[in-house]
């Protein structure tokens, strides 16, 4: 069974801070398990696109090293011509708007990118199972609710990446 791990911006922010212990722990766990974390392109842009974040201890994330070592990879572009991907993303947009009590117009593609990527890797057969590592509860719940409605029951899992989760993470989480 192939499991694909998709990680969100919040995972790496949680890893930040002056000591970076949590980053090293995550790195060790992922590498020992011999897996990689995929990040949607929009997450990649969020992580790298903001010089103002450098002033924050937690904004100084040593994630480029993860690319060099190969345990963080940027996912393929989302294929909006795939009807499943675009349908699930539209549904996720409505779902997130509803969960957050916002107008649908305020939710954007970035909000739904995690769900779209999960749908894509399941639909193309690249993954049998997807684990979403995120601090985005509305998006996590959208994925867990919507993908089973498209035939992917028991094939998606949302893990909220809390401080405790990263402080205790081991390779077992990825097996």
């Amino acid at each position, binding site marked *: 069974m192939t499991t694909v791990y998709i990680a969100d*911006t*919040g995972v790496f*922010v*949680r890893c*930040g*801070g*002056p000591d970076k212990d949590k980053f090293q722990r995550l790195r060790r766990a992922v590498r020992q398990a011999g897996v990689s974390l995929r990040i949607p392109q929009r997450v990649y842009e*969020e*992580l790298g*696109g*903001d010089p*103002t*974040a450098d*002033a*924050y*201890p*937690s*904004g100084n994330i040593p994630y480029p090293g993860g690319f060099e070592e190969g345990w963080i990879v940027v996912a393929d572009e989302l294929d909006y011509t795939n009807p499943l991907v675009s349908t699930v993303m539209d549904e996720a947009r409505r779902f*997130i708007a509803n*969960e*957050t*009590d*916002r107008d649908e117009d*305020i*939710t*954007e593609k*970035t*909000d739904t990118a995690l769900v779209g990527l999960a749908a894509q890797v399941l639909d193309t057969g690249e993954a049998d199972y997807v684990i979403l590592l995120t*601090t*985005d*509860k*509305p*998006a996590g*719940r959208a994925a867990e609710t919507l993908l089973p409605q498209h035939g992917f029951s028991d094939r998606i899992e949302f893990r909220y990446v809390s401080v405790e989760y990263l402080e205790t993470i081991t390779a077992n989480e990825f097996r």
Partner: protein
Amino acid sequence: MAHSPPRSDRSPIQQLQMVADLLDTPALARLYAHILQHGPVTVSEMVDEIDIPQGTAYDYVQNLETAGLVEKTREQRPYEYDAESIALTLSTDGETQTITPALIAAVACRDENKDVDVYIERHGLDGLAVALEYAYEYVDGTVNHRIAARELDLSPLEAEIILQALEPVATEYADAVA
């Protein structure tokens, strides 16, 4: 047995001055937040729990007591103190902001959590108060950092940093808001 005078005897200006000091002095804010969460407590228990010199702690407790924000709940030594929750709403030119115990607790963590400190430097205490409102929603799962970023005019990364930094305070004080 001696009784503390009722709180209404304190002048509002005196309390306002004290609240201003709380927002300006993280160690004082830490002490107040600690009494509020864990009181009744003695000064030596406070000194054990939070990183603050004993003499300073006695001074702070006395100032808070004078302003009516804490009171003795045990009149024999060792004295025990408990804190009164505050909610001070200020209005200026149509803008209204309420200073709550959670906001004091958020200020209290700026010494240990430099993300909070940088955020205050950059966006002020009003900005922190607004971010704290989003942090409650973030904990509840009714907002994500991307929506917060758009509504607060921050980058998504900065939004996620401050929401995570305020998550412990928002979690601890969630019941007080509900």
